């Protein structure tokens, strides 16, 4: 039962991204061609509201349902890691039209071929785990 709430939030997220067409390859293609405001509106408004939400949580020292204060940890600073890793991610995002969330949502939407995309992405993560010591971080 304690997992039910995560399932429900997942359902909310899945419906949202599917209904706003964020999971459609067409929308990603359009976004990278700068031919519509739609995707920028989705991500931009989520971030603006997200910034406000995080500021309120921090200033009010809000507790989670587990009783401890909600904490945020700073990400370690680096340039190559985020820039190179991010660029590789972007290459794949524009090809499949799906980042990790949408890959799974599309499976449920009725595109079983995304099993192959998910497995390939898992393999990509696996190979990263094997060779990460050789990569600039």
């Amino acid at each position: 039962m304690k997992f039910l709430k995560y399932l429900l939030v997942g359902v909310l997220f899945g419906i949202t991204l599917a209904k706003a067409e964020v999971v459609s390859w067409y929308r990603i293609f359009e976004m990278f061609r700068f031919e519509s405001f739609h995707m920028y509106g989705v991500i931009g408004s989520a971030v603006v509201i997200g910034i406000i939400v995080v500021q309120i949580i921090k200033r009010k020292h809000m507790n989670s349902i587990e009783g401890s204060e909600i904490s945020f940890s700073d990400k370690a600073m680096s340039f190559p890691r985020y820039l190179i890793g991010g660029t590789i991610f972007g290459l794949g995002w524009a090809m499949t039209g799906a980042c990790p969330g949408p890959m799974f949502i599309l499976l449920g939407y009725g595109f079983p071929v995304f099993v192959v995309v998910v497995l390939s992405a898992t393999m990509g993560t696996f190979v990263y785990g094997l060779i990460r010591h050789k990569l600039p971080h």
Partner: protein
Amino acid sequence: MKEFIMQPWPWYVAGPLIALTMFLLLYFGKNFGVSANLRTMCAIGGGGKFSDFFRFDWKSQIWNLVFVLGTIIGGFIAHHFMTPANPMVDISDSTVLALQELGVEHKGFLPPELFSFDALFSLRGLIMLVGGGFLVGFGTRYAGGCTSGHAISGLSDLQIPSLIAVVGFFIGGLLMTWVILPYVLAL
């Protein structure tokens, strides 16, 4: 109301709901980040035998897998109960034109000739589905997060590393869309 739900949702509905998703997970004491599940799946599959990167307490990540299961169900519900039959994605006219020039049909929710099991038997489909998936999985872990972890969670917490990652997402996305993809689509 029903009419509104059945239509594609505008950005000003989706954006706040994504922020709500992030808030709810924070409130539950967790962090919003989908790509971590790929690492968890490697760990469950025995990846720890090959790299210490996959030796961690993956049981602490089960909640995230349950979240992902929810997103699959959400996709199913959205399609079967909240969308009219044969949805078309209403992209801009100039995008439709660009697709025509590249020989990609504008039909349905995803280009049918690119996202089917049949597509896997063409070089083009294989590169886009297997190659694309691999790059997403490799890049996201290298960068330490994906669109949810960096673009939403990280930027919301004003993390500079996340901003660098998002710049990277766009460098890669623009390079693919404008330079590489036309060649791949021509295969």
